[in-house]
């Protein structure tokens, strides 16, 4: 797997004076520290602070009791489990649904392609709330409301556009000749898909899969309206504490960490797998 940095052509790395390189490093990492690490640290301090009023720059007293209370909630584990199962199913289903369509988008010239492209992009454009409320009514009619199935179905609406675009970008890069070669060597449609297209689509599938997983794991709006409170995912469980009109900083900070942790872990792993060029090809071309 190409590590992100290596996707840039080697020749691009210009030679720098030693001082310059240090300066650039120092500047960039300082910026990173101030804009990302510091807020995270402060948020963590809030989650363990036992009171933090001015003029204290850091809290004077600390407590773990809030963390312990929160973690002791059996509902949390259940919700995490729900979220994981839903995210896994959503990820695989999204990939499965996206592949044929991405293939068509990548390989078939047709007249209404632009229109289909816009339609596939549309779920990104239309506010999730509108989709969710609309789909809520439809699901009620279909008897899918407040079920895990319903939540999975509605989440796929959100993950599908990105996956299709990423897979289209990936599949566009597979030369026709490879497929013809495989066929002339005796591979049928199944053989070609299994041995040529899928293996070559792996970078795209990994990138799309990770984004779908995170997207599903963190999705709130649509899952909430379609599933809550019968189906509780981690965000549904935790967002009640993040009610903007009554949120308490210490509790909210804990919640933020619980919500962020899996995503951050996945993202750090993803950093090794996500190909920038693919991401950009998937999202960066309209």
């Amino acid at each position, binding site marked *: 797997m190409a590590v992100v940095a290596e996707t840039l052509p080697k020749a691009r790395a210009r030679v720098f004076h030693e001082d310059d390189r240090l300066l650039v490093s120092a500047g960039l990492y300082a910026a990173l520290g101030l804009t990302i690490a510091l807020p995270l640290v402060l948020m963590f301090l809030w989650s363990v602070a036992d009171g933090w009023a001015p003029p204290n720059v850091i809290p004077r007293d600390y407590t773990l009791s809030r963390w312990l209370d929160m973690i002791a909630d059996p509902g949390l584990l259940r919700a995490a489990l729900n979220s994981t199962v839903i995210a896994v199913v959503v990820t695989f289903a999204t990939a499965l649904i996206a592949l044929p369509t991405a293939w068509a988008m990548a390989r078939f010239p047709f007249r209404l392609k632009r229109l289909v492209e816009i339609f596939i992009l549309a779920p990104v454009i239309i506010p999730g709330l*509108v989709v969710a409320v609309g789909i809520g009514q439809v699901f009620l009619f279909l008897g899918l409301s407040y079920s895990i199935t319903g939540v999975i179905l509605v989440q796929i609406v959100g993950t599908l556009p990105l996956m299709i675009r990423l897979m289209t970008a990936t599949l566009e890069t597979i030369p026709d000749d490879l497929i013809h070669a495989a066929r002339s060597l005796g591979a049928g449609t199944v053989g070609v898909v299994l041995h040529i297209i899928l293996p070559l689509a792996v970078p795209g599938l990994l990138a799309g899969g990770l984004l779908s997983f995170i997207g599903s794991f963190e999705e709130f709006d649509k899952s909430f309206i379609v599933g809550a409170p019968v189906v509780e995912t981690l965000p549904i469980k935790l967002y009640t504490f993040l009610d903007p009109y009554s949120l308490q900083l210490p509790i909210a900070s804990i919640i933020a960490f619980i919500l*962020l942790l899996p995503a951050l872990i996945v993202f750090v792993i993803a950093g090794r797998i996500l190909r920038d*060029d693919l991401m950009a090809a998937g999202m960066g071309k309209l």
Partner: protein
Amino acid sequence: MQAALHDRKIQLALLLLPGVGYLVLFFGGPLVSALIGSLRLDDGSFTLQWYERIFTRATMLRGLQTSIYYGVAPVFVSLLVSIPLALLIRQNFWGRKLFNGLYKLPMAVPGIIVALMVIIMAERGGFIDRVIAPFGVSMPKLVRDEWGIGVILATVWKQIPFMTLIITSAFAGIPEDIRHAARSLGASRLNTFAFVEVPLAMPGITAAILLTFIGSMGSYAIPDIVGSPSPRPLSVLMLFEFGEGRFAQVYAMGMVLSLFAVVVLLAYYALTANIGVNRAKGDE
């Protein structure tokens, strides 16, 4: 049957079916039902009152303006940061690989948590204020302020990685030879950048602009928490209407917001269609 499967048109239809069919069913359907819902009274009769409310109520009109403002302003600020950042991270500096992974973290942070961070950091009497208080300085108002600076900051924080990623790739996609050619023809490094690299990277950059614009125009958690209580963007007002159970109003507002985004998208297509650079793909 066998012959039918070999017909390219039928193949195309079959291949498109899963993805497009899924979206038609679970996205198009609800959208149409939302559209119909936005044109109906409780008793089922036709009405335009929900749209009328959007375009006659001062709160809503200002909300629409605010939505557009919250969509546009962060994009400009993000660009100002992302382009230099994209240029910097293609240099060979110490710890570049690590940085490349780390700077993308904000992409995984939900908006509401970003808002929380802004409150903790930049609220008056918050962390920064406390740090600088001993020097007799105090923070300007960044939260709930008239110009939505807190909202812009938070949105930008979340947008920069995405934008940088796309812009980096857009620059990386330019063949080295083209740059060398420009330099050999006498262009300075700056001129090469301005007249060769930027135009070539433009399709990627504009796409990033468009997507971040659409994303931040529709976001509500950030403006809800750190934005001014008045005016509030349409997305926040929409959430309020949802709380009141006025679904028809929610639908109407959603339609107006979406329509605006779609118009911008189509305008984008119309404008870029003539440039031709990014038409290489898709229409062959």
